[in-house]
């Protein structure tokens, strides 16, 4: 069943037990993003130390509502960026973006994306790509706001 390619166990695990969920203090920026076609929403906060690409991501906290794909992707995101520099986090974001927009043609690098490679199957369903990117877009936006 092709469905199993999309709903890999890793994704369902993150969905059922999301990592780092909840809104925490302290934070420098909070953003609210929605997926207007389906109504999925995420409120996301970042807590950074320092400035520029060398700043460190001390916390990413969030409250979200949405499908398994958007929930799991946000959970994976927190695993990937916590305690990394902003520069490293953005590299991972770039890699995840390429994977998701690759229509299933891009081979993900497990060293970079860790659990994120489970989303390779989602990339074959263009309508769900937005779900997987919701949290990531919010993260990028939040960091940009801290910096501006």
């Amino acid at each position, binding site marked *: 069943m092709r469905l199993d390619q999309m709903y890999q166990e890793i994704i369902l695990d993150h969905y059922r037990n999301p990592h780092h969920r909840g809104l925490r203090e302290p934070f420098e920026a909070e953003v609210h993003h929605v997926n207007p076609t389906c109504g999925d929403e995420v409120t996301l906060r970042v807590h950074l130390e320092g400035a520029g690409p060398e700043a460190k991501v001390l916390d990413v906290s969030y409250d979200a509502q949405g*499908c398994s794909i958007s929930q799991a992707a946000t959970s994976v995101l927190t695993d990937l960026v916590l305690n990394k520099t902003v520069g490293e986090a953005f590299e991972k974001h770039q890699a995840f973006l390429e994977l998701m927009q690759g229509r299933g043609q891009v081979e993900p690098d497990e060293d970079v994306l860790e659990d994120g490679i489970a989303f390779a199957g989602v990339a074959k369903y263009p309508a769900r790509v937005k779900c997987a990117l919701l949290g990531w877009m919010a993260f990028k936006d939040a960091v940009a706001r801290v910096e501006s």
Partner: protein
Amino acid sequence: MTSTSLDVAAIRKDFPILHRTIRDGKPLVYLDSGATSQRPVQVMDAERHYLETSNAAVHRSSHQLAEEANDAYEGARAKIAALVGVGIDEVVFTKNATESINLVAYAMSNASVAGPESERFKLGPGDVIVTTELEHHANLVPWQELCRRTGATLKWFGVTDDGRLDLSDIDELITENTKLVAFTHQSNVTGAITPVREIVEKAQSVGALTVLDACQSVPHMPVDFMRLGVDFAAFSGHKMLGPSGVGVLYGRHSLLAAMPPFITGGSMIEIVKMEGSTYAPPPARFEAGVPMTSQVIGLGAAVDYLNALGMENISAHEHALTEAAIAALREIPGVSIVGPVDAVDRGASVAFTIEGIHPHDIGQVLDDQGVEVRVGHHCAWPLHRRLNIPASVRATFYLYNDLDDVTALAKAVVEAKKFFGV
């Protein structure tokens, strides 16, 4: 399995797309006609015939091709007017129902910079526009924007727990200050059919204009705007077997004749000078530019197709499918219907949720089995908020669906529950 008053097997032969498969060879079960319907060969052939024989710019050129094009275009207008019981000059063509509604909203703001002849349409602070909490965004956002432009206030009818309009405060909402009441004939989510006459009578008693969103009624049941008494009504061709890119605005003739234009340009003018222009009578006044010519002609063919089956028969057929779908879904533990659970005053939109699975995920499993439904808020976000659900799954039925499709839906839902282990 055949169901009711329609010979669905014969009908399906007219729709080539229904014979394709989805994902890994699953037969297509198309349950998304509420978003857009499929098109029979008769409609596609009518457009093509026009294009291969008479295509020309209507209302502009006067050679033989243009003569034939005009006849085809205006002939379609007559058919469409007859379908909804109105005069030929009361039918304005737009690109979709969304534009039709915006046309009225913008004409009303334009009235405030026009002369006294447009008095009837002027709005300002203190004036009230009334809509409802179950509207499609197309019949809500334009009124929000109109209020923003003019300083008028937007008020709205609420919704009952089973997704019907709550008209209990009609006397507080529709008062002497109310200038316009915009509401849907049938919810595109809950399927609830509005008691149009009750609202129209109240609106008329205070001199308010009425705008009916007929997107989900005209394709599915006999509708007579004259008898309903509404002042304006909007619907889209693509939801009634017709082409995309064509919508209709019905407007009472006396109102259209007094209303300022919306989109301006060629073919809607009377005299143009650099210093200023005057405008043609309706419907031309509201059809600027080269129109969606072949699409209007295609819509005329769609009306022929619907008439040949009979709107009463279509409505009875869909009623039977709705009853069957609600019954089948309610048998599945964890499924909640979003909307009335009886089929009284209710059209063929069956929305639901499943405890423990997000609608987007349900839709994915259904798609994997060839069952094409819509998931999300279906452009009715305030309604979903009111019902405390982030989104829903929506199956909509049309004349080419039958009881097998209902069975396929129920089976796929059970499968979804199994897949997610709930």
